[in-house]
């Protein structure tokens, strides 16, 4: 093939130089913004230091403290709750919504735009808006529930509902995922459905045996991307729970139910000035993210179907 011939005729040394030249900004960026900071943060996690004083070596003390720190576990629990509830629901809603959007309808650009619109609202504005919507007395969410005679929870002041409020806010921006699935659905070959029709398969079976496997690569990608996003969630719970105006207490929602891992990390680093501890928390997050990613990738063999055509 012509490509192989001409590429291979180039001396590898020159090819290497070219490659490095083009990639140089990222290589610099990687070293400066990723490699060195990761190592530095690893070092900081073994010290006790605030921004203004020299780090003092304490070995594994920060990690030991983490084990007995109730708020650390709470923040971890909250974040895992957001993730393991939020991600599946996100995907489910996205797939369902994609099916709805996939119908023969006029005005497709409009529907897609409306569904994606929440994603471009600055998270801070979205947070405030939902604080208003979820207000137990004046909020519209409870008003709508009242119409249907469904009990109205105290979204933002009830410890059992605080975490769910965060998830609701995050689900509002599900539009992006929905559109990705829409594109994925359009890529599923018609013939497969027609064949299934002839075999007498109903809609649910067609979904499970055709649609689901065909979109599973997208699902894998989305699960990982969403999982990473949910594990790092900061702005949404921060704005939902921030104590307005009154002093500057670090508010974390009813019963600390909105204390996400990132918020607690941020508090430790920038409010309590315990940067060593915050760095240790960051490393734990790194491991948790890696572990879950690997778990998902390993499980992918069981349910992800790659079209080898």
């Amino acid at each position, binding site marked *: 093939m012509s*490509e192989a011939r*001409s*590429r291979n005729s*180039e001396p*590898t040394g020159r*090819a*290497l130089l*070219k*490659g*490095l*030249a*083009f990639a140089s*900004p*990222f290589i610099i*960026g*990687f070293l400066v913004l990723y490699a060195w900071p*990761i190592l530095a943060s690893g070092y900081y996690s073994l010290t006790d230091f605030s*921004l203004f004083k020299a780090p003092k070596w304490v070995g594994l003390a920060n990690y030991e403290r983490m084990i007995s720190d109730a708020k650390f576990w709470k923040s971890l629990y909250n974040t895992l709750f957001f993730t393991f509830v939020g991600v599946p629901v996100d995907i489910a809603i996205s797939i369902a919504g994609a099916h*709805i*959007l*996939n*119908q023969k*309808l006029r005005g497709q650009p409009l529907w897609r*735009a*409306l*569904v*994606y*619109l*929440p994603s*471009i609202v*600055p998270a*801070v504005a979205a947070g*405030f*808006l939902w604080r*208003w*919507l979820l207000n137990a007395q*004046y*909020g*519209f969410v409870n*008003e709508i529930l*009242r119409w249907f005679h469904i009990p109205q929870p105290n979204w933002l002041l009830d410890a059992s509902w605080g975490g769910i409020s965060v998830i609701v806010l995050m689900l509002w921006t599900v*539009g992006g995922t929905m*559109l*990705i699935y829409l*594109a*994925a*659905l359009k890529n599923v070959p*018609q013939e497969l*459905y027609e064949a299934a029709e002839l075999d007498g398969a109903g809609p649910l079976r067609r979904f499970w045996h055709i649609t689901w496997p065909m979109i599973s690569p*997208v699902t894998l990608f*989305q699960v990982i991307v969403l999982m990473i996003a949910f*594990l*790092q969630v900061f702005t949404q719970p921060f704005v939902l729970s921030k104590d*307005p105006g009154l002093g500057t207490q670090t508010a974390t929602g009813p019963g600390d139910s909105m204390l996400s891992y*990132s918020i607690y990390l941020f508090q430790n680093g920038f409010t309590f000035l315990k940067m060593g501890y915050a*760095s240790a*928390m*960051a490393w734990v997050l790194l491991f948790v*993210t890696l572990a879950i*990613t690997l778990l998902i990738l390993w499980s992918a063999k069981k349910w992800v179907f790659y079209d080898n055509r």
Partner: protein
Amino acid sequence: MTTAEIQGTTLGERVPVGGRFGWLMTIYRYALVILLALVFVFPFVVMLTTAFKVSDEIFTAPPELFPRSWTLEHFYNALTQIPFWRFLINTVVIAGLSVLGTVLVSPLVAYSLAKLRWRGRNLLFIMVLATMMLPPQVTLIPIYMMWNKVGLTGTILPLVIPAFLGTPFFIFLIRQFLLSVPDELIEAAKVDGASEFRIYWSIVLPIARPALITSAVFQFVWAWTDFLYPLIYLNDEESYTLSIGLYSFLGQHGVQWGPLMAACVLFTLPAFLIFLMFQRYFIGGIATGALK
């Protein structure tokens, strides 16, 4: 239900729906999509109507959707109490510079991954993938210390410079796109004696325009809505972005829902306009990016 009707619901626009209950199905389908859109749009409606309501009407229990008397005072308050235009300009500057950086640098790196053959290529690709998955919290503090050491905290540079060093997500996105660019084009140019950079700049880049625009548009939105980085790096109110401005508005004035909702409307408006203008690229780009 006829076969055609069933196919109509699963496969999209290509199969026409016929049969006796066709019109019922059509209504059903439109109802579904309207309901779906409504769920996402309803909060905006609340935001808008609250912004126009007279203060007393805002706190009615049970809440009423439409204002009985309309007022512009909240918008006036929001605009005079916060330096809206300055925040807007700041946000546009930061977002614009980030886009510039992304569009200049990310394709360069993507090209090295997609179209060049060199020894470190696979290693670089793994580096890109790995950094995509890295939680920013891990590097947050050391990066902050670093910027502090060179005296750049309190400026917009920490927010903008990283875009000029390549963003892993966009590198990945553009790389995927570039893989589908036919190599014959490049070969032809090489035969003509063009340098690698020439090939990149004059041939590959124009073809990659859709991916570039998608990256630009996404980068813009990310920078526009960013909260955490401006929170820790921008100290001077002069340099605040819209996100931080809105947040500090809350702190300064307490939760006055009228002006707050008005401010939210104002802060969302520019993003909404940009979105309308570039709608095609947003939605097209999402599909391209995720599937390739």
